[in-house]
Structure formats: C-alpha cells, structure tokens
C-alpha cells in the first residue's frame, strides 16, 4: 500500500515536470516539445508566471515526502489524504476560475489559459489515487487500496463526464430570461405546462409528448420483456432446431443503424408500401397512414429493443441452478408449476432489468419517433427540435429533459422496490450437476407462437433492406444495380490502393472509435457493478444512483451538454475523437452495470472470499474468479457498447467533426437528401460488419463451462 502511494506520487511528479500541462494542438495525447510554450509542462508553466499551477505540484511533493519521511502508518495515511484532497481542490479551482478568455473574477488579473492536457490529467490521477490509498490505509474498505481507488476513479469519471456537463443543462433550465439570475418562477409553469401533459388523445385529439412518451415506454418495456423471455426460454429450455439462426435474428435489430427499421416499415406498411398494396389488392383493405403514430413507433421500438431484453434474460435464465428446478419437481410440482413458482421468481432480477432497459430505451429513442412519429410527438424529438428547430429554445429542451429524467428515475426506483432484498444467488461454490427442466408443452407452444412469427417478420424486414440496397429506387424501379455500393465503397488501384468511396472516412473512424470505446465501456460498467454488488462503502446508494443517471439522460441532451461543457477550457474536447469515445463510454456504461449486477448477484460471495483468503487481492479476484464466471455478461456488455457506438445517432450528431465523422451522421445526411439507396447500402455494410464482429467476439470469449453439459433434459 505504501508502495502504491509512492508510485503514484512519483508518477504524478513526473507528469507535472515532464508532460505538457495544456492541450497541445495535435490533441490531448500528443506530447509536443518541452521548450515549446504550448507544450510546456506544469513546472515550466509555473516558472513562466502561471503561479496558480504550483498548488497541485506542491501537493504532490508533500504527499511524496510524507510517504518517505513519516514513520507512523496512520499519520502517513492522514497526510496522503490531506495532500491529495488539497491538490485536487486547487487543480479543479484553477481550472474552473481561469478560462481561455481570462479569469471569472476580476481580482485574479487577466491571465488566460487553454484546456488541460496530458500533464494535468496525470497529475490529477496521481492526486486522486494518493487520496484513495490514504483512505484505505486508514482502514476503510477493509484496507483494500484497489477498492477505494476504484470507487474514487469511477466517482471522478462520472462527476467529470456526466454531472459536470449536465450542470450546464440544469443551469439553462433554471436561468431566468435576460440573465436575471436563477429561479423557479419560469421553470415550474413550463415543467407542468398543459401542452406537455395533455390527455386530449383520449377525446380524439393529440396527447402531450410527456403522456405519449410514458405510454409508449410502458408498452415497449412490457412487449420487449415478454418477447425477450420467450426467445430466452426457447433458447435454453427447448430442443428447438434453429437456435443459431434465432440468435442471429435476435441480434440483427440492435446492429441496425437508426432510421433503417423505420424506413423499411414505411416501405412495407406506409400508404404506398408493399404490404399495404398487397392487402388492398387481396382483401380490398383501405390504405391508411396507421404506421405514422403510436403503432408504428411501437412496432419499430419492439423490433429495435427486443434483443436487448433477450441478451439480459438469456444470462439470467441460463444462470438459474438446475437443482432448484429439480428440487421443485421432486416436490411433486409439474413442469408448469415449477416454472411458475420457482424459475420465474428466480428470474425476477433479469425481468426487472429487461423491463427497465426497454422502458428507458424507449423514452430516449430518437430515430424511430423522428421517422414514424407523424403527429405523435414524444419528449426526445421535442427536445431535439427545441435545440435545432427554427426557434431554438435551450431552456425548453432543458425542462423537457428533466421530465424525461423524472420518468426514468421513477422507473428505476420502482424496480428497486420490487426486487427488494431477496437473495437470488443460485450459482454457489458448491458445484451442482443437474439439467434444466424443459418447458411444458403449453408454455413451449406459447413461446413458439410469440417468438417465431416475430422472428419471421424480422427476417422479412431484413431481406427487404438488403433487397433495397441493390435496386435503383425501392418501390418504383426494382432493377438490379450496384451503384449505391460503388458510390459509397469504391476502391481504386491506380498507383496503389485508394479508398475513393464517399463512405470510407466515416466507416473507418466509426469502427476505430467503436472498437476503442467498447472494451472501455465494459470495463467501467463491470467495475461499477462489482463495487455495487460486492463491496460495502459509505454512500453506496448515491454512487449507484449517479452511475445510472447517464443512462436516463437522452442522447440529444447529452450531446448538447457535451458541446456546452467541453467547448472551452478547462476541458476542451470538441472536435476530437476523445469526446466521441467519452460520450459512448458514459452513455452505454449503465448497460454494463445492470448486466453485471444481474450476473454477479447470481455468484455466491464465498467464491470471492475464498480467493481473498488464498492470498489474492481484490484485483486478482476480479480478474481470475469473477470475470471468467461472468463470460456472458462481459460479452453482452462489449457487444452492446460496440454496436451502440456504431448505431447511435442522437448524441453523436452534435459531436461529429469533419475529421471524425461517424457512419450514422453520414447516413442521416443521405436520408435528408432523399438518397435512400446509398443510405440503405451503407446500413447493409454496417450490419454485416457488426455481425462479423459479434460472431468473432463470441468465438473469442466463448461459453462458460460450469456443469457437465448444457443440454436440456428431455
């Protein structure tokens, strides 16, 4: 522990003395020359007159001195905490007070400074870990420096990349007109505005966006959970022949870029859609615009989010110890009773998580309502239009997003109540060896009847998308062409290889950024889940709440918040790839957290304790015992965040730059220009890419082998 603190002290001092304190034009990670004023290290900057930077450096030196000079461990620990906290406070204070165009307070003179760079980052990190090591040396967290360090790191990350930008949105929501300060006098009337909460649709009119969002989210949450459960049960508890196909099929919708499902639904069910034409021709059914509205958006969301429910539920359904089901059967319960009274209650954490994810995803969904909403307004699109519409109204956007936040947080609290304090641990250290009970015929056919038509429908939709990418103009001219692919992905070989297609740039940067952010997301998410499930520390509830918060914030709001917060010092990231990676990590991290919590609460705690008792520290335990047992959860987290990074549009659209364009914003541009062919062709390529990536990931991480076989008893 002493070594940890000294190491961080040395590292921090090295960063302060050697690395460029400020952002170098080439990006945060480039080094620049120490002599170059722009690349000056903290020490050089202090000598050059920026005396306010001396604080963090001195704090580091003091902590280092305490580590080497003080003999009494408790006094040393106390010194570390004091130095670390003081250094961090000084660092944050100078960053917030002295901006690019001068200090906020006139008393501080006229000095200005650019955004923080690598040196500042290393210094801050060192100060943070010195503090947490000190805290653990004082006996907190059972004296485990890894645990306190992890808590500190995640709190700092969430604070800087979720709370700090959201503070800018909040300030907007409570700001009074004309810069007259802050207050509730404008906030409250707009929060409870009748147009937002109108129930007019019950009387034949149009409801307010808040009501629409809530109804849609409930319907989507229930629907996706039911379908996801049906798929998970077919997958684990029946001898269904085409399981592999089913798995691919359920993954397809999440790897689909936004707008594509909406577009396909319109071309199928719109007024001039293929299906509508057919029904009109065959049964004389009237052509209507039903797809534009609640029904259409709901259908699209069900297609998009059922796989999320499936991914959450399959881990849980697989994790239920067979001996529980066997116990029930030996107690003379039949297969239906076993399912109803034992298996289903044990799935409660999974069901609750699946519902919560579907509910929140639906609330935050932006692409589907935009394409299919028609007059059916929801909060997320209203927020988008409040920001980019003809009359920009950031205050309205801020207030609407607070309504959205209230709904998601409400769902979160209800879920916690429902789960209560029961134990759902079924994988204990005592190995068991039974086989899962198969479903009774009635339930089996119910699952088939729910899931299989759905699977067929999805299949048709995707066939149509691929078909559409090869025809000249879908719906009108169905002659075969490769023109769309050529335009997007042409390669020429004159004087070597040239990627001349219009889409290559965005394609490569999308893949790079997704590949970087996916493992980071999974790491942050699972580490948080580990702390929440396995460790006890003060303020754990607040910690959990804050990590879930970023998920409740819709992408449009996060995008705007990031632009507002990271456009100027102290943290200046707009236009870089880092801001895109950050937005993906902190937007998708709650999925990793929830998945990790659900999976980890099924692992008996004595496994961790056994590892600790055998001399492993928490980090080794995490790496060698918990992570290997969490295979499916890790796979789900990496897959999901990779795919989300590729397909998300709402937050990204505000953050892309000429250098780092993303596939989705490229597609949106094509859709806006009515170039559907190239949009669909690009989407098809993305789908194939993601499918390949998912299959590769699955092959690498593989399945855990806990029991003699995973076969289902006949």
């Amino acid at each position, binding site marked *: 522990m002493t070594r940890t603190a000294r190491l961080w002290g040395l590292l921090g001092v090295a960063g302060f003395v050697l690395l460029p304190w400020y952002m170098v034009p080439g990006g945060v990670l480039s080094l620049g020359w120490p002599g170059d004023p722009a690349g000056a290290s903290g020490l050089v900057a202090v000598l050059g007159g920026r005396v306010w930077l001396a604080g963090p450096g001195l704090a580091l030196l003091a902590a280092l001195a305490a580590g080497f000079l003080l003999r009494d461990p408790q006094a040393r620990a106390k010194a570390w905490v004091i130095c670390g906290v003081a250094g961090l406070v000084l660092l944050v204070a100078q960053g917030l007070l002295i901006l690019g165009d001068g200090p906020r307070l006139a008393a501080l003179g006229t000095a200005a400074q650019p955004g923080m760079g690598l040196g500042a980052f290393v210094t801050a990190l060192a100060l943070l870990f010195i503090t947490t090591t000190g805290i653990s040396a004082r006996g907190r967290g059972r004296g485990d420096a890894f645990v306190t360090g992890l808590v500190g790191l995640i709190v700092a990350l969430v604070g800087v990349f979720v709370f700090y930008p959201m503070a800018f949105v909040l300030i907007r929501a409570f700001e009074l007109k004309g810069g007259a300060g802050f207050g509730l006098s404008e906030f409250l009337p707009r929060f409870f505005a009748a147009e937002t909460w109108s129930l007019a649709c019950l009387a034949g009119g149009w409801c307010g966006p808040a009501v629409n969002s809530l109804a849609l989210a409930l319907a989507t949450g229930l629907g996706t959970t039911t379908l996801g459960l049906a798929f998970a049960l077919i997958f684990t508890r029946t001898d269904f022949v085409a399981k592999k196909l089913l798995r691919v099929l359920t993954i397809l919708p999440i790897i689909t870029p936004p707008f594509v499902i909406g577009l396909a639904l319109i071309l199928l069910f719109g007024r001039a859609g293929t299906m509508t034409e057919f029904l009109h021709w065959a049964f004389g059914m009237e052509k209507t615009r039903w797809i534009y509205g609640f029904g259409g958006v709901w259908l699209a969301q069900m297609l998009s989010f059922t796989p999320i429910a499936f991914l959450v539920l399959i881990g849980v359904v697989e994790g239920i110890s067979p001996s529980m089901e066997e116990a029930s059967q030996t107690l003379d319960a039949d297969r239906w009773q076993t399912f109803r009274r034992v298996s289903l209650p044990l799935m409660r954490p999974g069901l609750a998580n699946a519902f919560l994810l579907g509910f929140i995803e639906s609330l935050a969904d932006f692409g589907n309502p935009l394409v299919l909403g028609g007059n059916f307004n929801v909060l997320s699109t209203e927020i988008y239009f409040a920001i980019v519409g003809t009359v920009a109204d950031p205050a309205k956007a801020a207030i609407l997003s607070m309504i959205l936040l209230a709904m998601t947080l409400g769902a979160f609290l209800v879920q916690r109540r429902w789960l209560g304090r029961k134990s759902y641990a079924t994988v*204990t250290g005592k190995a068991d060896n039974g086989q899962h009970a198969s479903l009774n015929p009635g339930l089996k056919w119910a699952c088939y009847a729910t899931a299989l038509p759905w699977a067929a429908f999805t299949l048709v939709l995707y066939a149509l998308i691929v078909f559409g990418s090869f025809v000249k103009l879908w719906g009108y001219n169905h002659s075969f062409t490769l023109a769309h692919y050529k335009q997007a992905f042409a390669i020429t070989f004159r004087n070597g290889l040239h990627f001349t297609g219009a889409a290559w740039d965005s394609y490569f940067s999308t893949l790079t950024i997704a590949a970087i952010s996916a493992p980071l997301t999974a790491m942050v998410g699972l580490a948080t889940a580990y702390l929440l499930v396995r460790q006890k520390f003060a303020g754990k509830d607040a910690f959990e709440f804050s990590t879930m918060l970023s998920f409740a914030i819709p992408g449009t709001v996060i995008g705007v918040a990031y632009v507002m917060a990271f456009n100027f010092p102290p943290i200046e990231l707009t236009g870089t790839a880092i801001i895109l990676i950050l937005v993906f990590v902190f937007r998708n991290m709650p999925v990793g957290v929830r998945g990790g919590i659900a999976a980890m609460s099924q692992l008996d705690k004595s496994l961790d304790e056994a590892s600790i008792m055998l001399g492993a520290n928490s980090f080794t335990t995490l790496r060698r015992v918990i992570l290997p047992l969490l295979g499916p959860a890790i796979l789900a987290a990496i897959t999901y965040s990779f795919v989300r990074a590729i397909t998300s549009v709402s937050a990204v659209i505000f953050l892309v730059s000429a250098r780092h364009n993303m596939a989705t914003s490229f597609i949106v541009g094509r859709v806006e220009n009515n170039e559907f062919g190239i949009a669909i062709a690009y989407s098809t390529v993305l789908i194939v890419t993601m499918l390949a990536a998912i299959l590769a990931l699955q092959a690498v991480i593989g399945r855990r*082998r806990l029991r003699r076989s995973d076969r289902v008893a006949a």
Partner: protein
Amino acid sequence: MTKGSVRFENVTKRYGEVTALKPLTLDIQPGTLCTLLGPSGCGKTTTLRLIAGLESASEGRILIGGQDVTHLSATYRRVSMVFQSYALFPHMNVLENVAYGLSVKRMPKAEMTQRAEAGLEMVGLKGFGARLPSELSGGQQQRVAVARAIVLEPEVLLLDEPLSNLDAKLRRHVREEIRQIQQRLGLTAVYVTHDQEEAMAVSDRIIVMKNAEIAQEGTPHDLYERPASAFIADFIGDANLLDVEVLEAGAATRVRLLDQTHDLPLASSAKGPAKLVLRPHQVRLSAGAAPGGISAEVSYAAYLGNSIQYTLATPAGEVFAILPPSATPFRKGDSVTLSWHPGDLRLVAG
C-alpha cells in the same frame, strides 16, 4: 515463537445497532485445533471471519503470530479458510483450484503443480486433478477445499462448518482426516461448528459461545466434567438438569431434591437454588419402588442394539436415560426407581 497463535484483545463487532460480538478476549495456542462451538447466531462465524479478515473489527486488536493484523486486509494475512459451501471455483479444474493460491503468489509453474499434486495426494485425491468440481461427489469437493487451503502452508487454518454438507458416515471419516492432517502439519486450526460431538471429537480446546460472547472455554474433558453453567452442561453431552436447593455449601455439599436431602462429594460455593447435572448414561434404574431414589414411570423406550434409551416421567421433570441392553428391558408404563452414583453428579448455578 508465537507463530500460528491467534489473540483477540477486547474485540467487538457491530452491524449498525446489532452487536454481533461483545468485547471478546481469547488466545489460541500455536499448533492446536480450537473449536468455536455454539448455536446459530452466537457469534462464532463472526469470530472466524474476523480472524480471516473478511470482517473488520469495530474495536479492539487482533493478533496473528504476535503481529497486529487488525487493519491488515484478508489478502495479506497468512490464513486459509475452508468454506461451508466449499467455494470451489467452478470454471477451474481441481488442480487449478488447489494451485490457485500458489499461482497468485507467482510460484514457478513446475513447483506449483508439484505442490498442488502433493496437496491432492494428502487428501487422497491423487489423479483427480483434471476433473471439474461439478464432477466430484460432495466429500471429494470438501477434500479439494481442504487441499486448496493447506497447500499455502498457512499459519492458521480456518474451517467454517466444513462437514455440514456431508452425510453422517462421511462426516466422521472426514473429520478424522482433517484432524490427522492438522496434527501432521502442526497447523493452528480454528474450527466452527454447531455440532458438539464433532467439536469433542476433533478439538484440543473448545470455546463455547452464546449470545455474542464466550460461555466457557476449555478442553473437551473440562467442559464435560466441569460445566460452568446449565447451558454448557446441556450443550456438551446431553444432560438432565434437576432443580435442587443447596442447603450446605463448601467442600462437601448437601442439597434438597424434591423432598429428599442428598450429600454430594463435590464442592459448591453458595447456598440457594441450583441445578443438578445428571448425564443420561449415569442414570440407574431398578424395578418398583426403592428407598433413596426418585420414583418414575417409563414413558418411552427405544432399543438401539448397543443400548436402550428411556424417557422417564418423574416428579422432578422428564429424565432421559441411556442404559446397556439387558435381558429384561423395561417397557412403556413400567414403574421404576431412578438412582445414581453420587460421585458422578455435577452442580451448576440455577
């Protein structure tokens, strides 16, 4: 010199309002097997987890091998534990499980495998290394857990109800094995159980706990022969507790039981109400009424082959007796007279 000793100095443990352990002071001698015995919720598991470092003490000091480990995390204590659930890692095979602690210490692979194999051999599972825990029987899993704990050569081996998941026949066998391994390696072992017979069979010393504190500690012989309270007398080896009044205290004692007075060859300190400890196998029975004994009626008789167990209804309450088999056993409803050898009796506070 004190390697392997365990010492608690006024250690307490609280969870919020609940006191799991009242100030506890104890000493465990190196190389001995000490059992923490008591009914569930008595604090024995908390004590074990405090030694392990899986819980941190609210107050007081914990020393292992003379070194203060109160604030040391479990990782760095030279202590191993065998869990009630075994806690075998399901994704590792048997050899990997046993070698886990060694590999965490970055031992060279060849030495690691060799020591793990030796550990498996010690528990009689040579050749099982490649199997998964789920492919072993309960008793075998238990032995893997023991092997995994002892290959680290810990200063102290902790066992948390290690036999509770085994069937009765296996239990006696495994507890003998554990005891032999402990003695062969000269390990200090702390053993938690609620089964007094198991405790008597394996322990050098037993610490009986009740209501978050120590009720009595001593060798199995001490606890059985000199119980300090009615609770101990009943908990360690069954006992019939008869209400008596001490009439004369001192080197010899005179008590009144029902309406009779008895002179007992044992020391007592105070006059007043007390309880007489009468072990079931110390009960003597004779047919009909006889002077100097207590009249009783047989309310239940069970023939066990090597003994006969009687439940007797007496004016002093129900008495349980175990007698050697006889050619003419008593039957339910028989009137008998109950007597004893005065030297067998013990007196505990009421």
